[in-house]
């Protein structure tokens, strides 16, 4: 996954990565588009074949590369094309949510929604709501934090590789 482009300091806009199931939520998002529903432009939609295909690694990867929020859209319970995919997604997300809380990532940055192919309006509502919630939380900005943490390492470089009078205890 390429690095999610970092917004400029003063013009920050939430960046939400949305994994949408091909059979339902992605089609609903299409419908929303065709129906010219206006919704926040903050979600970057990635089409997957089933919500059960969303590996928790994808979600952490999105956050670590600069996403401020991650949204997953799948078929309603009982409607998954692959029978169990959405239940698997739900189970994973319940545990991931708990784990991310322990890792200091707010629960509201992360959402799983069942949206069927006909629910274009719902796509609009969910994306708008989530954009507002994430905007209220502010940027997560992990790539910037990683770079900041690593500043503490640079300081010694010259002492080892340059000339320095070593003090021997």
């Amino acid at each position, binding site marked *: 996954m390429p690095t999610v482009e970092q917004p400029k300091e003063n013009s920050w806009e939430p960046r939400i990565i949305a994994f949408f199931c091909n059979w339902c939520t992605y089609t609903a998002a299409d419908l929303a588009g065709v129906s010219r529903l206006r919704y926040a432009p903050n979600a970057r939609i990635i089409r997957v074949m089933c919500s059960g295909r969303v590996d*928790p690694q994808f979600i952490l990867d999105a956050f*670590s590369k600069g996403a401020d929020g991650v949204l997953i859209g799948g078929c309603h319970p009982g409607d998954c094309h692959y029978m169990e995919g959405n239940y698997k997604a*739900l189970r994973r997300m319940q545990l991931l949510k708990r784990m991310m809380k*322990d890792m200091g990532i707010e629960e509201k940055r992360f959402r799983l929604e069942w949206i069927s192919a006909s629910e274009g309006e719902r796509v609009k509502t969910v994306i708008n709501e989530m954009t507002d919630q994430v905007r209220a939380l502010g940027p997560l900005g992990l790539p910037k934090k990683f770079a900041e943490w690593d500043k503490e390492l640079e300081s010694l470089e010259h002492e*080892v590789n340059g000339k320095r009078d070593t003090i021997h205890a």
Partner: protein
Amino acid sequence: MPDKPKVAFYWCASCGGCEESVVDLAESILDVVAAVDIVMWPVAMDFKKKDVEAMADGSILVSLVNGAVRTSEQEEMAKLMRKKSKLIIAYGSCAHTGGIPGLANQFGREELLRYIYEESPSTVNPQKTRPELKVIANGSTVTLPNFFNIVRALDQVIDVDYYLPGCPPTPKLLKQALEVLLSGKLPEKGAVLAPDIALCDECPKKDTKPSDLKFTEFKRPHWMQIDPKVCLLAQGILCMGPATRGGCEGVCISGNMPCTGCFGPPSRIKDQGAKILSALASQVEAKDEKGIDETLATIPDPVGTFYRYGLPVSLLRRKNFNSTG
């Protein structure tokens, strides 16, 4: 007689177990000692930093560095060993993936120092004295290394050529690695010197691992009589085998203890914790939020369980604080 190849051992934030594993080579250690010239080994020999500094750059064939990096002193020594060595091996879980010390990445630096120097039950420190980087007493200056904000795996500080996984690595893997390196037939740079398979693939209990599990509860090993012949996951015990690299030959499993993940993930897995989380959670039996949560609540500490040895190299690296904490 031509000079024997020079080998060095160094330790950073570690427990000493990796040193022990070198000694565990038993009689074969004599072959190693006969074949090489050990030029640095703080736990066993009296070489100093200045001895290493006096050596020509790249003159050590291989340095085996264990431990995570938490302080500026460890960083400095890691960089010195890198400069003086042709090859660096990250030896053991802490150097490879951050290891147990890496679990400290769940806490902020200030939080840790406050607990250790002020709040822990065994601390008596009414003046709240903290170690200073520099103290001048009786006209002489004493310095201490800096305690970094986060714990790092070795390759987050210096360039690493090979990795020997394990907490600690097994003598068999160490012996194989030394033989390969001394033979001059070098593996591809960046290789983990253990088979690239999941532990389940070499587990003595693998034939009893069901393809589909239905968890209703995760049991702790001390709660029950474990059937020594049956896959631990099939008995409801959380085993990291599916997301962990093989190579240890299932030493813990053979002792009827679940794998806790010390070999890190095989190469196709990027984040060991997220992967095992996925594998376990998706096989919970319940279909409703409440039922799912009840089953998953029997995993009391997901971060400490799934990232026991690998938090610093996980995708999130450490707990997120809104300040640098």
